């Protein structure tokens, strides 16, 4: 009996606005608890929400990028429930009418490209954090210390952070596909600059709805929702575990109960959190404090004009225009930084083939090594292009270029100044090479004798001596030619 898994993801992408979605407080991560919570965030009596247009703009951007429909009128609703880190006793979210409807994302699977349909994307605010049995290093003056074992602290810095909840249709059929979808979505939200994608800080987290059914059955099985998966690895593991759990349950004669589950990465298993019977009645109703969100065509067009070329289109263009392989193009388009650096290098005059090799090789390795692949690189695409041009015009060899690259990465300056300062200009002057060759031959009679005895390896040894004597700067082709000529006489 074969089984099929049916998976849909709900992804919360934290939008990269500087201020919160309904207040002016900062969204920066990692500040001392409650230092980034203003009167609105802590829900003092009498305060009111004011929508941050930057969050809306990012939602529009996303909708355009996935080919979804932007609702000209969407509505914020209140989702009512009590929890200490939910200061108002309700979360402002979009319920009946979201800002984005439909759209799709194409993922790469073993069987080729597969479109995954999106149901919707809606704007909402994040809650704060409950810190249990926490250690508070410093208490405000005059405050009696809490018994930290018994109390729960509330940090409202995150309360009101803008989120875009992106809901997929149940189009995914395996943990691998779910991860491919999550990774593609992750790359896309970073690409269009609406989310920093930092999963450790919770800027991008997924809930997975998982059900199983026997192959060939059209109806959906009972689903479980696994909450708060904040790494691709956990997403994969949790879904795999859950699929197996459900199959075993059914094969043993049981049935799946609709419930919300949590993944425990230490044990590698999902555990029930609450059942459908415990499901709260959120008493959604339109938030009377916020008029409907109206988006006109002009706003949409303004956002469209700012939208960068999307990864899929760029990839096709790279393959077509620069004769790159689909896999190379795909890797170059995995982040906007790589793709832009590549294009900037070309604009600076670099050869497309050479630039692709360098961006995928040295450049990516350096970024990875410095873990700076999220922010700005120390070498811009344009600077890299200037370096590659010096290989192309014979000023330096590829090998020397690597030395120059490292120096540039370390901040020593641009390619030309490093080449000059370090005297790395390639020696292509035949007289100069002749002179060094003569010296090397004179200083190494034994090797010369070996060569003349027919040992080709000795020739390479002599080339090495010449390169060493010029500290790698001699033009290798010229060195070869001069050596052959001198040794054949």
């Amino acid at each position, binding site marked *: 009996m074969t089984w099929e898994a049916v998976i849909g993801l709900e992804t919360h992408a934290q939008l990269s606005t500087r201020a919160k979605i309904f207040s002016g407080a900062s969204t920066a991560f990692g500040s001392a608890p409650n230092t980034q919570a203003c*009167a609105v965030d*802590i*829900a*003092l*009596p*009498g*305060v*009111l*929400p*004011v*929508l941050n247009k930057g969050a809306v703009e990012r939602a529009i951007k996303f909708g355009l990028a996935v080919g979804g429909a932007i609702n000209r009128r969407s509505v914020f609703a*209140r989702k*009512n429930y*009590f929890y*200490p880190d939910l*200061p*108002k*006793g*309700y979360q402002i979210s979009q319920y009946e009418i979201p800002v984005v409807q439909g759209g799709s994302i194409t993922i790469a699977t073993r069987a080729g490209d597969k479109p995954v349909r999106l149901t919707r994307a809606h704007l909402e605010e994040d809650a704060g954090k409950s810190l249990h049995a926490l250690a508070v290093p410093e208490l405000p003056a005059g405050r009696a210390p809490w018994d930290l074992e018994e109390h729960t602290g*509330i940090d409202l810095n995150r309360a009101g952070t803008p989120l875009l909840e992106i809901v997929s249709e149940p189009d995914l059929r395996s943990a691998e596909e779910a991860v491919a979808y999550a990774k593609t979505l992750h790359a896309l939200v970073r690409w269009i600059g609406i989310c920093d994608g930092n999963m450790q800080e919770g800027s991008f987290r997924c809930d997975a709805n998982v059900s199983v059914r026997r192959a060939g059955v059209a109806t959906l099985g009972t689903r479980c929702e696994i909450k708060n998966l904040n790494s691709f690895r956990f997403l994969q593991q949790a879904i795999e575990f859950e699929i197996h759990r459900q199959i075993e349950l059914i094969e043993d004669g049981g049935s799946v109960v609709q419930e919300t589950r949590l993944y425990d990465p230490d044990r590698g298993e999902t555990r029930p959190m609450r059942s459908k019977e415990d499901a709260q*009645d959120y*008493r*959604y*109703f339109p938030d*009377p*404090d*916020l*008029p409907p969100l109206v988006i006109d065509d002009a706003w949409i067009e303004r956002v469209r004009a700012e939208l960068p070329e999307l990864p899929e289109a760029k990839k096709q263009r790279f393959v077509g225009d620069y004769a790159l392989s689909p896999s190379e193009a795909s890797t170059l388009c995995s982040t906007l930084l790589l793709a832009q650096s590549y294009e900037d290098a070309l604009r600076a005059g670099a050869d497309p083939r050479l630039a692709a090799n360098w961006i995928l090789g040295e450049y990516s390795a350096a970024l990875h090594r410095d873990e700076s692949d999220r922010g700005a690189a120390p070498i811009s695409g344009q600077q890299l292009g200037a370096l590659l041009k010096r290989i192309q015009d014979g000023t330096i060899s590829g090998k020397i270029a690597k030395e120059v690259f490292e120096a540039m990465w370390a901040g020593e300056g641009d390619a030309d100044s490093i080449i000059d300062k370090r005297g790395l200009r390639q020696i292509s002057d035949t007289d100069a090479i002749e002179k060094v060759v003569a010296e090397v031959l004179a200083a190494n009679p034994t090797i010369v004798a070996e060569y003349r005895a027919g040992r080709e390896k000795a020739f390479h040894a002599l080339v090495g001596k010449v390169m060493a004597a010029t500290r790698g700067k001699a033009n290798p082709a010229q060195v070869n030619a001069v050596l052959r000529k001198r040794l054949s006489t």
Partner: protein
Amino acid sequence: MVTAPIASLAQGLAGRRLSSVELTTALLDRVAALGAPLNAFLALDRERALAQARAADARLAAGDATPLTGIPVAHKDVLMTAGWKTTCGSRMLKDFVAPYSAFVVERLADAGMVLIGKTNMDEFAMGSSSESSYFGPVRNPWHLDYVPGGSSGGSAAAVAARLVPAATGTDTGGSIRQPAALSGVCGLKPTYGVCSRYGLIAFASSLDTPGPFAQTAVDCALLLNAMAGHDSRDSTSLDRPPEDYSRLLRPGAGAKPLTNLRIGLPREYNAAGIDADVAAAVDAALAEFRSLGATTVDVALPNLDLSVPVYYVIAPAEASSNLARFDGVRYGHRAAKYDGLADMYQKTRAEGFGAEVKRRILVGTYVLSHGYYDAYYLKAQQVRRLIADDFQRAYRECDVIMGPTTPTAAFRLGAKSDDPVQMYLNDIFTVAANLTGAPAISIPCGFDRNNLPIGLQIQGNHFAEALILNTAHRFQQATDWHTREPATMALESAR
């Protein structure tokens, strides 16, 4: 002199015949002498008031004054007032000191008004009698056994007893107009969105409207001029060009200043069980308006009888959500002993809220619940639209709509406190303006057999504040109901 309307006091201040310090001192003394039996004030601060009065006098001396500079005012305790206890009449906020000020509080302070105190009110503005305050009921200065109306009963009673010439209120279903009527003063509910709700502790967000209490329509216009205006911190605040609400009130309109004014009289009002004395007073007022040149025309508001049921679905629904923030976690009351989170919530809210607040939270929670939402909340919103349509049709035939503010004059304390439905029916004529968002004023127009004041309500279409203020003003120029003051002997003897 100190019990005169704002406009007269302002002349005295401007002419340097009176200083704000003298005025403020005199009124604070009057509050001390007469205020106790009314229980109109929850907080008074003589030192701070006198400091503001001195600053106002400096402004007056420097020629930098507004028409309100140096005039004492009191704020309903639903309005956040920086550095003042702001309790909302609830145990939940018994010791809560506001860290910031509401927009209208800021505006009146900017205009130079002198804040003398915070006024008592029904708990969380839920009520029509000011009996549900945790701090005890407010009493009607015309007869201490009677209620002053609510929920802004403290403000209405304070202005009626001439303890302060101006006070703020908030009107969610009539909470300014109904106590104005029952206490014999003017109370204006502006168009929704004209005065920012920022800093108004929310009861029902789509209905809550700040507005002024004063002795005259002229004074209400002066106060509204300062209170109105766009506020970027309230997304429902309207961004309109500033308007001078006093502009139609200039003298020199002739003997028939209301010629061309068409007064709509809803037929449905006749079936609403209006007390005979109230009906007679309103009829007399209408005769006065006709003599001022106005004409009357019958209009139809066929869904009027649905306004109270609709209101008592929508307002509790919004309240049930708005009051969720009072959970004992961050501020306000928290139960002293509890066992776990759920118990903390239950005990805190059980102790912190009074019976009427709990009743509305329960009703609101019910009407928003899964399976009931469509039948109650959604249906109520649809009917709300029908009611608004009725008014738009009526305003094709008239400029203002008049009738009694309430079916009866003030009732005795305790008379309706055990019968919430009877209490709610007191709102029959006032809730429609909240459901539609349109402005309305209540002005004194007579007394009933118990010598209790009767209020005339003048409603207008959206943004018709200047028109209804002028209509009220011309009536007040021709009559003296608004100048009647309650006898202070009763207050003195009750001390």
